[in-house]
């Protein structure tokens, strides 16, 4: 026990020598079972220089993270590209998106789509260049998802719109109210394996809504009590279906599933598990 006490004192002393918040006395958020399995990466610690990160998309290989650098005084928002393990690979400016910049993102395999106004901009994922824009039903079209045929968008209300874009730059997408089951949406992700839409909430409830393909509510999942979510995306790299959600927190971070078991972090057991 003396040994343990010594370790604890040393750990607390180490906190005092860093800029990190001491954990002692700080209440931890409530988490559900899913969060026990998560991958977590700190976007600010990972290289994004301010706290205005809002949306995310998956281009099939990497995450695209949107940041409202305009809120921090820059002339445009930024894209940051992170790999699946949370390593920052690249960054480049959004095409003159002011303030909070582009919000949530979605990808159709050719373009990455995001919105800063009623326009939905699209960027070529092979060149990172903005190609064009079309008009959506709300301003901005915060949550963005794509199911292979239709787009879905929503904002700080309960309505989720289904959009059909004709593929013409500058056109207005046809839309219908597809669901009223969301909770103050910020992000969305179409889940092809789960046959449902995930919608993250920005109202500090930590809710993630799961909505069936017919627009009906499957479940309000409360994932991190009190959390404010940003964007959401599926990131399929293994047969396990991965939902990643961006938390607008302190710091901004990505939560998701990681194929690397938490147990690898344990000393003895981690050494054994690394050989399986």
């Amino acid at each position, binding site marked *: *026990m*003396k040994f*343990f*006490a010594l370790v*604890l*004192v040393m*750990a*607390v002393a180490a906190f005092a020598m860093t*800029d*990190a*918040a001491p954990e*002692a*006395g*700080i209440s931890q958020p409530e988490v559900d*079972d*899913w969060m026990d399995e998560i991958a977590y990466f700190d976007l600010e610690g990972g290289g994004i220089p*301010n*706290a205005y990160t*809002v949306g995310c998309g998956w281009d099939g290989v990497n995450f695209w993270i949107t940041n409202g650098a305009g809120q921090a005084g820059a002339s445009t928002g930024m894209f940051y590209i992170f790999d699946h393990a949370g390593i920052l690979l690249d960054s480049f400016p959004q095409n003159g998106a002011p303030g909070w910049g582009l919000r949530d993102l979605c990808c*159709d395999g*050719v373009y990455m789509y995001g919105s800063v106004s009623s326009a939905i901009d699209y960027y*070529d994922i092979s060149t990172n260049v903005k*190609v064009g824009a079309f008009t959506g039903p709300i301003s901005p079209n915060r949550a963005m998802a794509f*199911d292979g*045929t239709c787009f879905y968008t929503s904002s*700080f209300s309960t309505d989720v719109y289904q959009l*059909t*874009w*004709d*593929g*013409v730059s*500058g*056109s207005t997408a*046809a*839309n219908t109210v597809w669901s009223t089951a969301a909770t103050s949406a910020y992000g969305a992700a179409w889940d*092809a*394996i789960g*046959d*449902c839409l995930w919608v993250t909430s*920005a109202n*500090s409830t930590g809710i993630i809504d*799961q909505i069936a393909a017919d627009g009906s*509510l499957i*479940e309000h*999942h409360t994932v991190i009590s*009190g959390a404010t979510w940003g964007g959401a995306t599926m990131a399929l790299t293994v*047969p*396990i*279906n*991965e939902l990643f959600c961006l938390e607008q927190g*302190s710091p901004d971070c990505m939560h998701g*599933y990681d194929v690397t078991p938490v*147990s690898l972090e*344990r000393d*003895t057991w981690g*050494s*054994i598990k*690394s*050989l*399986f």
Partner: protein
Amino acid sequence: MSKFVSLSALVLILTGCGSPDGSTWLIKTSSDVISVAEVGAIWNELDQDTKIRFLSANNPVGDFITALGRKTMITTEMDNDSCLYSPMIQDMKECWIINSAFIACIDTLSASTRRNLTEPDLSNYRKLLGSVVWYSSETSGSKGPERLPDLPWALAFAFDSMATGTSVEIEGITYTLDSTVTSPREMIDETIADSARFNDFARTSLVESRVNRYLLSLKTEVLDTFTADTATVSAYCSQRESLDNSAELASWRYGSINAGEFDGIAAFVSLGQPGNEHSLEWVLHSLRNQARLTYIADLYAAEFPEEFSSFEAGAEAFAVDQASELLFKTNVTDVVQITDSMVYEAYIQMDSIPLLPETRVFESVMVPGNIVDDAIVLLDNDNALLELGYTGYTKFLRSGNEFLSRAVYPSELPYEMDLTLFLLEEGDTQWQKPVETEECLFVFYRLVEIIPPHAASFEQMEASIARNLQIHLEEQRTMEWMCELEAKHQFQVNHGILSDLPADPANWSEL
């Protein structure tokens, strides 16, 4: 314990003078013998991250051999304990295969659809680009909005030349064009002018719409015969423990799912996303979806049996991983029980109580962007902000309080708020200009209390102590468990030959 300590403390100094034969045994248990060459081959197959994990330790080779021996015993335990072959693990493995087949099915369909696209397909897409239609038919009711060029060509070209409200018969089905919207010609021409991007977009659109249409038809096919036993599903959600594993929850023409099988499905789904086995809607959705995935996976297996069987190796590795985690939980995590008295005992035995840095308490009101201007004029009006009908900064609220925060450290607070709050003097209780902490959410705040650096109380240390104690005792219990396994499986390392082996295990496979 002493046996373990002697093993873990073993320092393997390898000089490499005169090497034994590769077939000489290096690790032995009552059921397995691993030779020097085999250990070398396993080392060579490790990925770089795993090698670095061992190489960064004080005794890389010794740690590797020890861990490999333990893995061998764990593998035997998993077989003996029937953990690997438990219904739960096997059902999760089945889900892994089904998901793999579903993904492979989409990839295969997409590749073949893309391969079969022709120049006339792109030409047709170009001709029809810019129109979205709503239509209806006797068989599928009202449809749309849909991109015109994503429809089958015969129907798309028929609609292109029809007036709204008129009908056409295609392959015996009558379709009525209900509405159409077309973009301006100059915008269409401009989009088409970038021919490389247009072709890319058109190909992707055609592939995705055709694959989605096919998958939707399969979903309809399977769900047409799908029936869930709602009473049994309700019982599963509310009283799982009283429901037999064999109780059937749902069936369809080609299969069924019982309660035991759904335990594995739910565990698998919850690996990657939120789940709720107590929610009737969630369970019903998951049952329907599993029927869909299973049906499509079965079709893939029938069409591509060789590819399907190739998923087995990956599924087996997944099952082993899950089983080993289950074994660890049973033998370590569930065994370690931290009590309040243990945590308190650890606290009072601390040699010195850590000094916590200064914290501050604040009062706040969090308002949406559309009323922030109205709120700003109330900054000098003592309690008026509190009466606006909004609560405080949710993330930091003291339990049971609407406006008052718990004690916070500056590094916890968002940009700007940290600096301002921690520069305020004691007694300065003026409301501060709001900070936009999240988009369209503004926090007004004022200082309430400064708590100077102080020795941590038990309440402040409790969570940290409990967490560290759990990790410490889990490590201790893991070591005890390994000792038990070493005795049970007669674990041995051939220490005598170690000093004669080359220093780098990468060379052992060639001996």
